[in-house]
């Protein structure tokens, strides 16, 4: 394809619209923020810093939505992992890397429970993950920590949470950006990624063409659980305690970011770049609201409005596709 053709495609593409929105938000808040501090280096890093946890949640959820399923449990699984980290670290003498491993395994176990409910018992992924998350995982975090937020003070954990490379860029930001890059490349470039897109398009056709949607489903749910646990561990190490509200409320913005990223609900489309831009938009927006000293009551309204905006964009870009397949995906 000639360069002109490639540019024309880019202009029409979803990524371009997201970039426009991002620039619009940046300009809006830059103009209105006191002495234009919105785009200061410190503020940019704090936006990235606040994105770290959302990135981890969004990666897991995006892969599942592209695959044609859904996951509302990562937030709750994160809290459970944080509580487990705190409990085991303070109580037993187990070395820290083993504790980390146990927490990630815990995330994988919750992911597998989701997968069994969806695959074996044909439960719809939305209600299954909601039940596993808001009941089982939440109950687990209370039980394991005995209802108390246990403090964490462990040199390695502290280093992980607070160490800043050239004391500007926090190490967790580097990890999360690296992760979204790796998953983006895996999704776009490798056989594993390609089979996620293919199964997302049509599971039966993919199965008859030689792929294995069932195995992939177990893998993706487990992956989403693991990433949720990883985010929970990071959250707990940042706070130096196994907080029991934890990351429960983090599933909602992650879903918004996934839809913003052009990952449509029919499965089979969308990419990580879109998801990253979606996250950037949401966090820049929230950051801007704080800088503009907007009264706290408005954050709920704003995040709901953002999700509606994301759904509208998804609708507009899908109308073209939907007309071609003769309304098949509707």
């Amino acid at each position, binding site marked *: 394809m000639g360069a002109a053709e490639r540019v024309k495609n880019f202009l029409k593409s979803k990524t371009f619209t997201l970039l426009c929105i991002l620039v619009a938000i940046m300009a809006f808040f830059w103009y209105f923020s006191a002495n234009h501090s919105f785009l200061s280096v410190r503020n940019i890093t704090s936006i990235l810093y606040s994105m770290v946890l959302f990135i981890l949640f969004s990666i897991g959820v995006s892969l599942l939505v592209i695959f044609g399923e859904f996951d509302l449990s990562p937030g709750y699984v994160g809290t459970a992992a944080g509580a487990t980290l705190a409990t085991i670290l303070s109580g037993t003498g187990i070395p820290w890397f083993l504790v980390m491993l146990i927490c990630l395994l815990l995330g994988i176990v919750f992911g597998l429970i989701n997968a069994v409910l969806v695959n074996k*018992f044909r439960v719809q992924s939305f209600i299954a993950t909601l039940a596993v998350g808001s*009941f089982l995982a939440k109950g687990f975090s*209370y039980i394991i920590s005995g209802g108390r937020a246990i403090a964490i003070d462990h040199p390695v954990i502290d280093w992980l949470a607070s160490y800043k490379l050239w004391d500007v860029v926090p190490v967790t930001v580097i990890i999360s950006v690296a992760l979204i890059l790796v998953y983006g490349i895996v999704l776009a470039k490798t056989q594993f990624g390609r089979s996620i897109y293919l199964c997302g398009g049509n599971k039966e056709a993919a199965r008859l063409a030689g792929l294995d949607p069932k195995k992939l489903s177990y893998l993706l749910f487990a992956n989403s659980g693991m990433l949720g646990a990883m985010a929970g561990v990071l959250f707990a190490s940042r706070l130096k305690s196994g907080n029991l509200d934890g990351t429960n409320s983090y599933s909602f913005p992650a879903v918004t970011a996934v839809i913003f990223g052009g990952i449509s609900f029919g499965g089979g489309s969308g990419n990580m770049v879109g998801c990253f831009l979606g996250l950037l938009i949401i966090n820049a927006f929230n950051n801007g609201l704080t800088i503009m000293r907007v009264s706290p009551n408005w954050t*709920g*309204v704003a995040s709901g409005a953002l999700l509606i905006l994301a759904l509208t964009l998804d609708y507009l870009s899908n109308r073209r596709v939907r007309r071609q397949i003769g309304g098949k995906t509707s």
Partner: protein
Amino acid sequence: MTDNDKSGSVIKKITGAKEFTLVVIWAVLVLVLWLLNRNFLSPGNIRSIFNSAFVIGILAVGLSCLLIGGKIDLSSGNTGMLAGVLISILLRDGVHWVPAILITLAFGAVTGAVNAFFVNGLKFAPFISTLAVSSIYGGVALVITNSANIPVSSQDHDWFLALGTKSFGVLPVPFLIALVLLAVYGGVLWGTGFGRRVYMTGGNANAARLAGINPVKITSILFVNNSVIASVAGILFAAFMKMGSPIAISGSDLDGITAAILGGVAFTGGSGNMFGVFIGLMMLTSFQNGLLMAGLDSYYQVVAKGLLLIGALILDYYRENARLRALKAGK
């Protein structure tokens, strides 16, 4: 059919019905909880179970109609909460309680219309767009009330408060209203043409289209109906608690869905009825109340409720699976 054949088939009809297994499970549950604490069946506790059940029950009525029609609405919790706040503000500012209720119900209808437009008009995924509406309403309530509760004064609104606090013997008025709604909607779904068309829309959309049914019209009506019923729940809770609060009942819609699923409403649409939902509701609330009374550690209650919902989902799978196997065997 001869006589004994007739009676035989009636008994078989009852025992064969899905609801019979539900009633048996519920009875066993009540028995176990009664054994754990004798006062479980005391009149006082029965009334408190009913008082804990009426919000979830009313929400479950609207949600079940939607589920049977093949859709879902996650904004009914916050819609109810905002309705409670709205009516308290109207009463505080001197509006007579009857027009106040009408205004609040109109607010519910508008919410339903917005949901219907998003889902049917713009083809948003139902649970995501209603989740967005729910988050917006959560914020709006905080803005309007500035996070404070708005009391309903008992001097000049005694009629309105009676709606929430009076009771006939063991039956509190709000629960009575929930029962009436369950019965009315049960009748509508079972007996009227519209009701049967709701089943058709949820069960097999193109068979419905062949019968000249317009699924968009039916589901839009169901969305409006669901939000209006959610407002009824909010109003009654405000009357019951004598105040509107920006955090009340916002989590009760998940309990409503749990009650519907426990009652045999299929998540994929097309089956389930209001009698089943009533049994599901009673199972859920007596389960919660019984566990509290038996003194089960509260952390395990959270897990227990989760296992109850997951158990209902798995039961739903086997019930559906049995139907398909019977179909294949009949080939």
